[in-house]
């Protein structure tokens, strides 16, 4: 190990300077901004911004659109999150099966949506959801159902975005689950088989408990990612119809960059931050309890 004091700072300087200028200072600036009425007039002349303390946060509390966005985001996270995790777990167990052949092909096929540009696939899905020519209504027509106005009705718009998100993201978690599954020793399954456990019981009593730490990790990254969903509603519904797909990030984008309500927009961003911190604390509490239980 080198004792020279200046060398490590030479190596650190570019990264730390970048993070300071474009990350840490802006976090502080955003916090200050969230306490001001920074708007389009302040954009030209900073002196126009006044401190209003928690005015923006109080405004959010009485803003029905903010609550709508929070509710929609919660809907997306609470329905889309578990669905994504369930599908990825099932896919991982299937891919890990000894009976399965052509594993590489299936793995690649399941993974393809993950790597592709979200905006591009959102454009494609927008046409697949087309009420007249889309493939979804075509498939429904075989069962004498529909047509459903997927993106045009406030009841179906959010489920449609959730379906897209599950399709797009499950492959990512699947890879993490797959690594977790491969780390489970075969002897555990053998012991379960000797005890007379069938396929279902083996997974219930071996796979699920053994995967618990992986599941906590996957749940956290999925929830954090889903809380920030933006491009899907931006491209497919613009938050509509009647704000039924307005998300927190879409709302703070609109407030900040369309209406230049930058103080208010920053406050909403901090509410999002606050929610994520609570989730992170919750996760570490769960993990601690889990480790103690071992």
């Amino acid at each position, binding site marked *: 190990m080198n004792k020279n004091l200046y060398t490590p700072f030479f190596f650190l300087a570019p990264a730390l300077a970048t993070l300071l200028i474009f990350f840490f200072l802006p976090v502080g600036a955003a916090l200050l901004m969230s306490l001001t009425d920074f708007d389009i007039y302040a954009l030209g002349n900073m002196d126009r911004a006044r401190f209003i303390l928690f005015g923006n946060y109080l405004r959010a509390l009485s803003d029905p659109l903010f609550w709508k966005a929070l509710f929609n985001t919660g809907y997306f996270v609470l329905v889309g999150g578990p669905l994504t995790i369930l599908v990825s777990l099932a896919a991982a167990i299937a891919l890990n099966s000894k009976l399965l052949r052509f594993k590489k092909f299936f793995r690649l096929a399941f993974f393809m949506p993950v790597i592709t540009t979200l905006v591009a696939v959102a454009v494609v899905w927008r046409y697949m959801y087309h009420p007249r020519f889309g493939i979804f209504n*075509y498939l429904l027509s075989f069962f004498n159902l529909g047509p459903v106005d997927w993106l045009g009705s406030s009841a179906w718009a959010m489920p449609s975005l959730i379906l897209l998100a599950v399709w797009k993201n499950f492959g990512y978690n699947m890879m993490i689950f797959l690594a977790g599954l491969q780390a489970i020793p075969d002897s555990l399954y053998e012991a379960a088989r000797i005890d007379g456990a069938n396929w279902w019981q083996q997974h219930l009593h071996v796979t699920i408990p053994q995967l618990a730490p992986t599941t906590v990790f996957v749940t956290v990254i999925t929830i954090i990612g889903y809380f920030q969903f933006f491009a899907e509603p931006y491209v497919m519904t613009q938050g509509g119809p009647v704000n039924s797909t307005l998300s927190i990030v879409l709302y703070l984008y609109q407030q900040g960059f369309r209406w230049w309500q930058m103080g208010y927009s920053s406050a909403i961003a901090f509410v999002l931050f606050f929610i994520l911190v609570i989730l992170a604390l919750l996760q570490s509490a769960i993990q601690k309890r889990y480790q103690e239980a071992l």
Partner: protein
Amino acid sequence: MNPKTRIMILTALFHLAMLLVSIITVLPFIWMLSASFMQTGEASVFPPKFIPDQFTLLQYRTLFERMNLGRYFLNSLVLAISVTLVSVLVNSMAGYAFAKFTFRAKKPLFALLLSSMIIPGQVTMLPVFLLLNKLGLLNTYFGIIFPGMASIFGIFLIHQYLKSVPDSLIEAARIDGASDFLIYWRIILPLSMPVLVTLALFTFMGTWNDFLWPLIVMTRENMYTLPVALANLLGEYVQDPELMMAGSVITITPILVVFLALQKYYLRGILLGGVKE
């Protein structure tokens, strides 16, 4: 039925189900590709059509000749490549410092960086936008390159990898009289090539696929990246699925090629705790 036939039937059904799921995951791409080769209006039919009557490159020609798509492609490519090169260099230097040097502020600094990863990017968007505006960097490549130069995840990734590289290699080089920079350049970088490729791949794909930040920084039409241009085209040409599909194909093709070439590095990145973009 004897148990052997039963297992065979179950295995066949299992493969059938897996095939069905892979059709679901791949079908949108196939439709995207085939519709992009259709005449204008051909994809707006019921029932949906999967094979063009007559294969045509009309949509691609329109995009490049009339919609300036070549320029957006160039923007995306320049940004993804330069952010990748610069950030791999900057992050690997910082990762090296954290992994192989002792200095007083090391532990608290590293802990501060790691705990800051919870802060969502949306928090810093507005102040960084105002800063770039003041510096006159909106609608320039630097508006995306500068903020993308360093990433905590990248530093962490390199740090984890270098911790497993034995110090003896570095000590031996030092005894031979190599300077710290030479050690970084000649020993650390070549040794960490696999993790550098992983980081480069994540950064390239993340920058290429990013939407929100370029949407904010690039407001002038000729500075759009492909995703921003695509979202914008959709507003005007929503009645032209064939055209939009061709645009989507162009947007995802480079990313698919890069991924297929380097996929084993990508999977390693996920397992090291890669973050989603």
